[in-house]
C-alpha cells in the first residue's frame, strides 16, 4: 500500500514537471537570436514574401507566441506532439524511429558499465591498495576523464580501420538488410526473426560505440562501488560476520554488497538517463542515427516542435529512472519500507 501511495504521488507530481519542461524548452528555443526562416529557407527563398508567408503559415509561426505555446500544449494533451520542420512528419513518428537505436546503444553501454564497473569496484575494494586496486583506479580515472570523441576515433582507427576485428560505424553493414521491425532494436528483432547473421553483425557494430559511450559510466560505477564497499567493509557487522567464520565470498557478496548497493543504484539510474540524453557525440562519430543526432539537428535548425518533443522525452526518461531507482531503494533497504 505504501508503495502504491508513493507511486501515485510521484506520478501526479511529474505532470507539472513535464508541463514546466515544455514551457522552459519553448522559452529557451525562442530566446535564441535567430529565426527558423533563416535556418530552413534558402537565401533566395527568404527574400520571396510568398514563400516566407507559406512557410510561416504551414508551421504556425504566423501566430503570436503565447498562442503558439497554448496550441502546442492543447495538442500535447491530445497526444499530438506536432510535426517536425526538418523531417516534415509527426514528431512522435520521428521519436519512434530514432529512439530504439539510442535505447539499444544506451542499454548495452549500461550493461557493460554494470558488469565491468561493479565487478572491478568490488575487487578493488576487497584488495585495497593492491596492484589490482591501483590498476582499477587508474582505468576508472581514465574512463571518467577521457574525451568521448577522441576515444571514439582512436578505437575506430585501431580496431576497425587497422585490425579490422570489429564492424565500424553504422548499425549494420551496407550489405545487410535490417530484420522486420518489431521493437526497433536490431539485436532483438534479429533474434525474433531468427536472423543470426544479422544479429552477429549488429552486435559487432555495437561493440565500439558501447565501449565509448560506456567508458565514463564504467569508470564512475567502478569508483562509486569501490568507495561504497570500502565504507561498508569497515563497519562492525562485517567484522562480526567475519568473526562468525563466514567465507570471504559470503561476507562480500551477501553482507557487504547489499548495503553498499544504494549509492551504486543511484549512480546507475542517473547514468542510464544521462546515456539516453547524452549520446550526441558518440552517435555522430559512429553514424548512429538515434535521438542524439535528432536532437542535434532539431536544435541547429530551430525545429521547435522537435526540440520540444525531445525535451519532453528526456524529461520523461529522467522521471522514470528516478522512480525506478526509488523503488529499488525499497527493495534494497527494509528501513525505507517502514518509514
Amino acid at each position, binding site marked *: 500500500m505504501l508503495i502504491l501511495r508513493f507511486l501515485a504521488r510521484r506520478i501526479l507530481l511529474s505532470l507539472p514537471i513535464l508541463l514546466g519542461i515544455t514551457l522552459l524548452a519553448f522559452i529557451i528555443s525562442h530566446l535564441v537570436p535567430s529565426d527558423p526562416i533563416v535556418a530552413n529557407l*534558402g537565401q533566395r527563398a527568404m527574400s520571396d514574401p510568398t514563400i516566407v508567408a507559406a512557410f510561416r503559415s504551414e508551421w504556425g509561426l504566423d501566430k503570436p507566441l503565447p498562442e503558439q505555446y497554448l496550441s502546442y500544449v492543447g495538442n500535447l494533451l491530445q497526444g499530438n506532439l506536432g510535426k517536425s520542420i526538418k523531417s*516534415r512528419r509527426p514528431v512522435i513518428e520521428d521519436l519512434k524511429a530514432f529512439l530504439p537505436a539510442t535505447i539499444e546503444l544506451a542499454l548495452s553501454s549500461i550493461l557493460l558499465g554494470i558488469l565491468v564497473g561493479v565487478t572491478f569496484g568490488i575487487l578493488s575494494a576487497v584488495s585495497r591498495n593492491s596492484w589490482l586496486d591501483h590498476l582499477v583506479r587508474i582505468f576508472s580515472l581514465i574512463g571518467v576523464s577521457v574525451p568521448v570523441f577522441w576515444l571514439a576515433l582512436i578505437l575506430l582507427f585501431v580496431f576497425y580501420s587497422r585490425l579490422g576485428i570489429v564492424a565500424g*560505424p553504422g548499425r549494420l553493414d551496407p*550489405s545487410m538488410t535490417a530484420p522486420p521491425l518489431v521493437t526497433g532494436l536490431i539485436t532483438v528483432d534479429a533474434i525474433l526473426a531468427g536472423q543470426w547473421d544479422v544479429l552477429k553483425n549488429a552486435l559487432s557494430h555495437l561493440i565500439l560505440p558501447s565501449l565509448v559511450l560506456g567508458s565514463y559510466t564504467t569508470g564512475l560505477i567502478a569508483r562509486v562501488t569501490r568507495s561504497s564497499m570500502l565504507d561498508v567493509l569497515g563497519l562492525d557487522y562485517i567484522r562480526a560476520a567475519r568473526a562468525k567464520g563466514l567465507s570471504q565470498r559470503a561476507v562480500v557478496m551477501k553482507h557487504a554488497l547489499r548495503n553498499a548497493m544504494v549509492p551504486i543504484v543511484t549512480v546507475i539510474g542517473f547514468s542510464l538517463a544521462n546515456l539516453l540524453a547524452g549520446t550526441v557525440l558518440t552517435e555522430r562519430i559512429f553514424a548512429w*542515427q538515434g535521438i542524439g*543526432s*535528432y536532437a542535434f539537428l532539431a536544435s541547429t535548425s530551430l525545429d521547435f516542435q522537435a526540440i520540444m518533443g525531445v525535451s519532453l522525452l528526456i524529461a520523461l526518461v529522467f522521471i522514470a529512472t528516478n522512480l525506478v531507482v526509488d523503488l529499488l531503494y525499497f527493495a534494497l533497504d527494509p528501513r525505507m519500507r517502514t518509514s
Partner: protein
Amino acid sequence: MSVDRLRAFKHLSAGIALALLAAACSSATPTAAPATAVPAKATEAPKPTDAPKPTDAPKPTDAPKATEAPKATDAPKPTDAPAANKANTVVIDRAEDTVSLDPDRAFETLTGILHKAIYQTLVTFPADSASEIKPMLAEKWDISKDGKIYTFSLRKDATFSDGAAVTAKDVVFSWNRLINIKGNPSSLAGNIAGVKATGDLTVQLTLTNTDPSILAQLVNTAFGVVNSEAVKKQGGTDAAGADKTDKAEQWLNQHSEGSGPYMLEKWEPKVQTILVRNPKYWGTPPAIERVIFRNVAEAATQKLQLEAGEVDIAMDLTADQVPSLKSNSKVSVFESAGDTVFFLLMNADKTIGGPMSNPKVQQAVRLAIDYEGQKALLGGKASTPASIIPIGFFAAYPEDKALKRDVDGAKKLLADAGFAKGFDIELAYPDFTYSGFNFGTAAQKLQADLADVGIKVTLKGSEVGVWLDGYRQGKLGFCMSLWGPDFRDPGNYLEFLPGKKVGERAMWSNTNSDKTIQDLRDKALVETDPAARAKLFASIQDYLQQNGPFAPVVQSAVQVGLNAGLKGFVYNPQWFVDVSLLSK
C-alpha cells in the same frame, strides 16, 4: 566537459558547413587556364578513360531508340535486394540533409544528387562543369526577341519509369506544381509568368522579366519532370493552392515518378537512401544496379570507412584529411575549386562605412590582402577569384587574372585618400566555419595584412544570426561574408551591383555609383546572346577589380574521396556526382 562542448561546437560548424557544402566548379590552375573571358575549360577535370560517355546530353541522333531499351534480363530482380552484390552496388557516405524527396519541395544538396539520377530536366550542363547549356529532355528551344518567351521542343523517345511517354503536359504539371506548392525551391520560379503546352511535345515558358540566366536555373532538379498521371493518382495537384491541397509528398518520399536512369527504392530518413536502376530507362542503362547513400555526418568517420573499403565515395572530406589519404593506394582523392566566394564588404555609405566608403581606401584594401596566405589557410584547391564571380562559371576570369598583393600600392592609395597614417576600423564577421573556411582565423589573417598598410582592425565576431541581421540590413561598415550561388550562372552575381540585393547591403546605389557600372548592369540583366554576355561580364569583372565596395578574399575548395576501384566519377558543381556514370 568544456572540451567536449567545444568539440561539439566544432562538429556542429563542420556539420553545417559540410551539409551545406556548396558545389565546386571544374578548376583551372593559373597555368592551365586560358587567359580569355571564355569559361575556363575543365582542363583538370577528371578524365575517366573508361567511364561511360556522359549520356545526359544526348544528341537526337545518337540517342538510343526506344526499341533498344534494356532487356528484361537487365532489370533488377526483387530477390536480389537483401544481400547487395558489391560489384553491382555503390555505397556513398554523405551527410543527409534531405527534408523531402518530392522534387517540387526538395532543395537540399543531397536531394540535388538523388534527383539528378531520378528526375530529368529539359536542359542540363556538361558532365563536368556549368559552362554551357545542353539539351536533355528538350531537343531544342527558341527564345523570343524580347527574351521573355522560351519555346521548348521535347524529344520523342523519353519515357517515365512506368513506360509512359514524357509529354508537354507533364512538364506543365511539374512546373506549375513547383510554383503553387510555394516551397523552398519555388524561389527559382519567381520570374515565371506562365507555362503552357502548345503541342504534345512543345512547351512555352513565359517570363515576367527578361532573364538570361533562366536556362541555368532550369537545370535545377526542382524543374525536373514528374509523371503527371502517376502523381495525380497519389493526390498530387498543380492547381493554385497546391501548398494546402497537394497530397503526393508522402508517396514521393518513398517512390519516384521520373524519367531518369534510377528510381527511388527506399528512403529511411537520416539512415540511408537507396536508388535502384530504372529497368525501363530510355537512355543507356547505367552500369551500377544499386546506389546506397548512407547518412554519415562526421568527416573523420567517412575517412575511416573509405580507408576500410566499406564505402566507394566519401563526399564530405575536409582539406586537412587529404594528405594522409594520398599515400593510400586503395583510395584516390578528387580535388577541385568550390564555388563559394568569401569576400569583404566595405560600406559605401560614409555614415556607416566611415573611411571604408572612400573608393581609394576600398582599392587599397583589395591590394593589401595576402591572397596566397588566405589560400594556404583554407588548403586544398582553394583559389583566388579575379572578382566576385567564382572561377569555373561561364565568362568568369581565371585565377591568373586575379589581383595580387601590392603593399606599396595600397599605402600610396591610402595616402592619396588622406589616410597616410592609417585609421582604426572594426571588422564584423559571423563566428563559424563554412566549407572549411573559419571566419575567425581568416579575420586574424586580414587583421595582420591590413596592419601592414596602416589600417588597424579590431575583430568583432558574433553569432551567425546576429551578424546576419546587421548584414542583411546594410548596417555593417566593414564585414566579411560569403556567397554561394543560387544557380550556376554569372547572372546570379549581378546582385553585387548598385541597387541590387548584395549591393544594397553595402549601401551601393544608383546615387553613389557611376554610370559605367549601372549601364553594364542594365545590359547584363537582359542580354541573352552568349558571346555578348561574355563580353559584358568581362567588363563588369574589370570594373570590380578597380572599383566598388567588395573585395573577394578566397574561393572554397572541394575534396571527394574515392575507392580506387571505382570508375567514372565526374564532379559537377550543380549535382556533384552523376551516379549513372559510375562503374566498377
